[in-house]
């Protein structure tokens, strides 16, 4: 049996009568960039929240890095970036990064080192002392991502990290995901941009809370005899595949 980084089995989550996630299984191996793709309302965000412990499943189980999600040791290993930009607009760039570093128990020196690296990557070094609220939309996204990475997590849960981000920044984000992959970081990402989904090592197609297909993007296209992931998705949605 492979050593899975994320191991979700039979996940069920209901909101009242609505079954948002319906007996969903998925496993992610180390170093994968795993894409959860699906239309709005398909349950992607709920799945991300279930695997990073923000929601409790009504049935099923999740293990991350072999640990229960509730295990306090696990929180040091995972990084979560919510759909919202999730930074403090009334703090400076520096204060935001420092705060999240402190939240993860980093020493002053470690924070300083990580801040330098991350601000450099995010192109925010010059904006270090600017209030986050004064940054452009793209820069806010970068800061949010920098805050997610400050404690050097082994697993990243990114909920639509590139929504509203310009193509150039989206491109640099993906380069970075691949850099992290080389370092052994596992990334689980939700998206509805099909061009991004194509860049994933594996994708899971979610529709009405169910996993309808899961494979490498290319293989999915081959299976369905389609030329794009959009078509793959439509094929599965219409039940043609």
């Amino acid at each position, binding site marked *: 049996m492979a050593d899975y980084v994320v191991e979700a089995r039979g996940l069920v989550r209901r909101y009242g009568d609505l079954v948002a996630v319906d007996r969903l299984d998925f496993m992610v191996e180390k170093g994968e960039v795993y894409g959860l793709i699906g239309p709005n309302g398909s349950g992607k965000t709920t799945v991300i929240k279930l695997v990073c412990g*923000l*929601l409790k499943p009504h049935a099923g189980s999740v293990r991350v890095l072999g640990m229960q999600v509730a295990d306090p040791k696990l929180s040091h290993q995972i990084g979560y970036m919510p759909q919202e*930009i999730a*930074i403090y607009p009334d703090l400076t760039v520096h204060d935001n990064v420092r705060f999240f570093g402190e*939240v993860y128990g980093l020493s002053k020196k470690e924070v300083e080192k990580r801040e330098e690296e991350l601000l450099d990557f995010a192109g925010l070094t010059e904006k270090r002392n600017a209030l986050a609220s004064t940054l452009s939309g793209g820069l806010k996204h970068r800061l949010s991502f920098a805050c997610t990475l400050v404690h050097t997590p082994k697993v990243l849960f990114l909920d639509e990290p590139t929504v509203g981000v310009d193509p150039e920044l989206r491109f640099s984000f993906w380069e970075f995901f691949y850099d992290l992959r080389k370092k052994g970081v596992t990334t689980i990402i939700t998206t509805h941009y099909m061009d991004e989904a194509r860049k994933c090592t594996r994708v899971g197609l979610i529709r009405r809370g169910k996993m309808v297909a899961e494979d490498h993007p290319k293989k999915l296209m081959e299976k369905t005899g389609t030329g794009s992931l959009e078509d793959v998705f439509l094929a599965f949605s219409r039940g043609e595949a």
Partner: protein
Amino acid sequence: MGATMILAMARNILLRLVHDRRTLGMIFVMPIIFIGLFGFAFAGEPEDIGTVVVNLDTGIASIPVKEPVGNITIPGLNLAEGIIDGFDTKTLTLHFSDDVDEALKKVENGEAWAVVYFPENFTSHLYGKLLKIMKTGTIPDPIGGQDYSVDLQNISTSDATIDLRIDGSNTQVAAAIIQSISETLSKSVEESHPDLSFSDVLNIRYVYGENARFIDFFAPGIMALVVTNITIMLTIVSFVREKTNGTLDRLFVSPMKSTDIVLGYTVTFSLVALFQSVEIIAVGVLLFDIRIVGSIALALMIIVLYAIGLLGLGFLLSTIAKNEFQAIQFIPLIILPSIILAGVIWPIESMPPIIRPVSYAIPLTYAAEALRSVMIRGWGPLEIGVDILALIIFAVLTFSLSILIMRRKAHQS
């Protein structure tokens, strides 16, 4: 500009209101709460003011006469009883005691607002005083013999006054006591003896709050009220923002515990409350010359304790509210009853008995009471034990509840 556009806009706003049920509820409920609260609070004068009557008056007048030299005793005058019977028992709730020291203790402990003390020779000396004022030469023999000529020179009048000892820490209650007793005295004394003024008979002394002005009574309450307002507002707004920003979710995934989050907020906002209280005291003392009899440090500690409870309450409300707009609507629901019912502006004694239990369910009541006791009465921590206990219960309750709810939110089950 055109009628169609104005109507379109108006309909747009109306529809949005209709869809937001909580706001709609507020629109209907608020006016009722407002008028209800003000109606109750303005309803009357202070009532049921606990007053201890110590009546040691024998009720017998003993008047010195010249021939034969000696005293003539007139029984059955009972002037004190006559006055006590005339007391307005709606305003004053009378308790009776034979021990003036014990009665005074009750006022010192805050169990009663006033002591009305009639000394042993009250009837005798007051009767004598009347004879003196009226320069009465003779009095008839009580058993029907010859008239006696009164020895006006040797009449004692030292016991001819009623001692009224008041806790003046609540200026309105104190004023109501004095007014009520003065009215009774004018009826029973002045009407029958126009030469005598009630002020000749009444000797007022203060146990607490001598020369206390309304602002002295008002300042501690205002201090607590400002802290209520700002702390609740700051907590609700910043915490709901934390929720809507997504930063709270980030924290929930991090190693930070719900308790860390709540305590972190507490440290900062308690300091804010502390700073505000110092500000109010400074302005109050420098600009309005408010007098502080007790320990300022103790007063500030009360404020911080109260602020901690408020923070807990703010957290609780934030967990209910979905966004900042909804959260802000909670503020008047907390502030308004506090202003009106907590005895900050109008004493609780002036509210109808049926509404008083509500006052005692409002934490501000205890904070304001404790602050007044410290600042005006000069009480220490032991004397305000009950208030402090109430504030501790408030803080523990709201805190444990909000941490509990937040833990549930962090791992929504």
